[in-house]
């Protein structure tokens, strides 16, 4: 195999998609060929620089702009038709309610600030690290709860029929680095998030190695019945 053939495999090699025999061959070649090694290091350097691009936020909140625009379109049928020939934007029955609810919901959607408890060492390209947790899927083994949090105090006084939609980032060492309450009664969001940070897990795994995982959970109250004896 020529150096050119070897370099053509770099991309798949980095993604771990190369057949084991090819991967071994490539690794051996890199040990003995300085030119290919330099090329490979350069490729890795470029991809790491790209992965290190900072996450930016919009000059002004997008949610607000979207809401205002929908509001405008709902209020002015003429404008609506100009903007959207053919299809009605909102069912008329729904429009005014929609706008009102959208405004109200601006408050209950809480983004509880991320509070990292573990420094994130930079992984190869950062996926599965605390700043880029993986979501559950068929190839990601879910974290298993080893120490549950007591939610009694946090939810004391909450009506029984309430539920909360929560995202929890479980780190590679089984701690909780972030909790975001994405939906549910805002009054309990902060104490609930604080309580959930006390949870500990057997970390999630991807291809056998521990990874940070984003868990989406619905938290609700259940009725506890005394034993019938």
């Amino acid at each position: 195999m020529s150096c050119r053939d070897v370099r053509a495999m770099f991309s798949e090699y980095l993604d771990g998609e190369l057949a084991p025999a090819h991967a071994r061959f490539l690794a051996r070649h890199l040990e003995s060929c300085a030119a290919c090694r330099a090329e490979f290091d350069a490729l890795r350097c470029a991809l790491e620089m790209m992965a290190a691009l900072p996450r930016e936020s919009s000059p002004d909140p997008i949610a607000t702009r979207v809401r205002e625009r929908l509001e405008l379109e709902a209020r002015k049928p003429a404008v609506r038709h100009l903007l959207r020939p053919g299809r009605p934007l909102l069912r008329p029955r729904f429009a005014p309610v929609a706008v009102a609810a959208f405004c109200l919901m601006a408050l209950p959607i809480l983004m509880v600030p991320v509070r990292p408890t573990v420094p994130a060492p930079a992984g190869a390209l950062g996926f599965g690290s605390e700043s880029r947790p993986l979501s559950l899927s068929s190839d990601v083994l879910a974290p298993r709860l080893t120490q549950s949090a007591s939610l009694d105090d946090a939810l004391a006084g909450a009506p029984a029929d309430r539920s909360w939609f929560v995202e929890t980032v479980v780190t590679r060492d089984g701690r909780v680095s972030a909790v975001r309450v994405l939906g549910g009664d805002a009054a309990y969001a902060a104490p609930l998030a604080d309580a959930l940070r006390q949870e500990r897990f057997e970390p999630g795994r991807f291809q056998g190695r521990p990874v940070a995982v984003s868990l989406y959970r619905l938290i609700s109250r259940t009725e506890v019945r005394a034993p019938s004896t």
Partner: protein
Amino acid sequence: MAAGEFAIATVETLGAASAERSLLEQCRGGDAAAFARLVALHETMVFNLALRMLGNPDEARDVSQDVFLQVYRTLGRFEERSSLRTWIYRIVVNLCRNRRRLWMRRRRDRSVGLEDLSARDESRLAQGGDSPYDTVRRREQAERVQRALLALSFDHRAVLVLREVEGLTCEEIAHSLGIAEGTVKSRLARARDALRARLCAPEATR
């Protein structure tokens, strides 16, 4: 514990997929609050993808707004063959492509918004314990990467950003771009090589 008391909270893990499905159902049922939640969940990723594709924060903000308006209007047509996320990525890429075409027609290169971006984000980029030197260095590096990205073709830039920044699998990228998975892999290899040539020539790293 007394009978009938509400005392223990159950925690049900939904998995991203079923959480998403219930959110979608609520949105389709006309629940504006659910749609607001959908926007909040995807806002950062939409803005960042648009920003890396266009290189200009104001353009990226405008495209992001259009993306969610289009999501709102076409939710009924979304078929759950792919995830909501990859479907939204597809809309972002398409709208960015349209916007670029518009620029070409106007013969105006508005992709040079890097200075605005770096000035505004200087403070945000600063991290705890960083010296001003680190901050400047990080900003310069981000600018270099962004410039290199903008010098690539639109298609190369799209696969790179989806893969290296957003962390999509090749299968998800195939869904997002509406191309075959094999095409994604070969395009990704070429795009990575093009980026390497612009950012880290071997001579420079030795």
